[in-house]
């Protein structure tokens, strides 16, 4: 972990540099094309033909109705399901429904996690649903979703 110290009279800032190389892409090929991922495609890819069950009773979602900033929407999900060696939630996936690319994150779990929980910040370009899918190691799939209203923020 980097630790920068700012000492009066000396500037130990040389290591930071003005531009964080990760912030501003350097030398990337112009051929990195944008990829559209329609929600339906993302969902079909996840289900692979399996049926999906209503997860609203076991999945508790903590997601704001109208977040301050659509670019950073906090998504928190807890799945009330045992995490036993032979029966556990093995994946939690978060999708959106109206972005250009609707995949946010896929989280693989094991009983070592102790419980089925995930928090992630999701980007939303407009009012739409966040869809959470939870899959067990035996292939049962649960689904729950929340509609999120996105408002105009500031001047840019």
């Amino acid at each position, binding site marked *: *972990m*980097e*630790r*920068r*110290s*700012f*000492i*009066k*009279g000396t*500037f130990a*800032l040389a290591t*930071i540099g*003005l*531009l964080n190389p990760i*912030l501003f892409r350097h030398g990337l090929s112009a051929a990195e094309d944008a990829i559209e991922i329609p929600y339906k495609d993302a969902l079909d890819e996840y289900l692979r033909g399996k049926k999906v069950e209503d997860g609203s009773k076991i999945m508790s979602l903590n997601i704001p109705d*109208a*977040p*301050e*900033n659509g*670019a*950073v929407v906090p998504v928190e999900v807890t799945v009330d399901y045992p995490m036993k060696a032979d029966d556990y939630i093995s994946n939690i996936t978060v999708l959106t429904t109206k972005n250009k690319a609707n995949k946010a994150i896929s989280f693989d779990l094991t009983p070592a996690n102790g419980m089925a929980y995930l928090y992630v910040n999701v980007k939303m370009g*407009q*009012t739409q649903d966040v869809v959470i899918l939870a899959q067990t190691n035996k292939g049962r799939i649960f689904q729950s979703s929340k509609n999120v*209203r*996105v*408002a*105009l*923020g*500031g*001047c*840019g």
Partner: protein
Amino acid sequence: MALSRRDAMKYTGLAAVTAASSGYAKGNEGAKAAAKGVLLSPAPIPAAKGPRVVIVGAGPSGLTIAKYVKKGNPNIDVVLMDKRSVFMSGFISNLVATGVLPLEFITHDFLEGARNGNYTFLQATAHEIDRTAKIVYTNEGTVKYDVLVLAPGIDYDYSKWTNGDAELETALKTKFPGAFIAGSETLTLKSKIENFEGGVFVQTVPGGNYRCLPGPYERSCLIADYMKRNKIKGKVVILDENPNITIKADGFHSAFDRLYKDYITYMPSTTITSIDPHKQKIVTELGEEIQFNDAALYSRVRGNKLLEIAGVAKDSVFNKGEANIDPFTYQVIGDLNVFCTGDVRPMGFSKSANTANTEGRIVAGNIVKYLAGTELSQKTWASPHTTCYSAVETNPLRAISVNAGYAYDATKKSFGFADASTMEKWDTKEGEDAGKGLLEWGKGLYRDFFN
């Protein structure tokens, strides 16, 4: 608490007698009674000669509304009040703080506005509002209204940094004010920069819909420019809660890179978890520690607490305690006689002087219509306009700018930008012209407020 005017007058008389006879003998009691008498009696302003519009807050919004309501119908009695005795603008203040323009440029006379605008200016602090009896209670006495406009501006919201610790909040406000409420804070900032001998100067950028999106970035450019010009070994470290520069990002990034590479360090997505104002150390969520020599610590903002006093406050999606109004008419939900305008509006428009000025002209026109019996609605809404110049370099003065209107999207049920454009090429002739434009833009605003 609705006293009739006659009762209030009676009470005053009684209090006066009490004070005269026993003020000295009984000490505090007489003084208290006299004070209460003052507070309940009418403020020393002319009696209303027509329907009265009372405006609390003489910033860009209030000043504009006072002038244009009066212009719209001279028979309307307009009273504009502010707790301050002198007007100082936030816009252009970064140029004053860095010694480019004199203090006089941003300092103006409320009385001049009143003389030219033909309205009554009352220097007073409103401390209570009775919306049933339609009375504003101030330290100069009561002011009755037919229409009330609350344009009190922002308050700082230090809660994320201090968790309610008033001692810490006071230390931050006193030692390292954000300088986004013009006045003493501007003088403090100016003094800090004039006396800066070297080291790290921290400028924070808060999250939420904070006042003046480009302000902290413009200030960082100008402080860096000051260090460069005066050969001061210093760095401006920008701790930005946002993931990227919030406005005119290309223009500011290119100024940071090409003009101030050795002077500005920009740290986005930086959430401050603790500030020690005595050790002058900041710790971030990522565990980074920043030691600073001086700073302007700009916290999040909220609606002025006067809105809570009036019972019209509501947290918006962006900030705490903003106005609970109809976004098209600016009228308080459930109380059509009260309008809230300017930075307290909950819609995500830019919190800036030009926006408040263009909005103020529209709302003033609507208040005149409303007093004439028209019902306001989405149909009477018109978009305010945001025009904003930011200086990035002095000698010559170079600036970047943004221009935007707003539109309501019925399907998305939210406001968005309309006709938005930016001019970010500060290094061209356009940038130099924008520098000149910045001064004219500022002067134009002062003229509209006071002339």
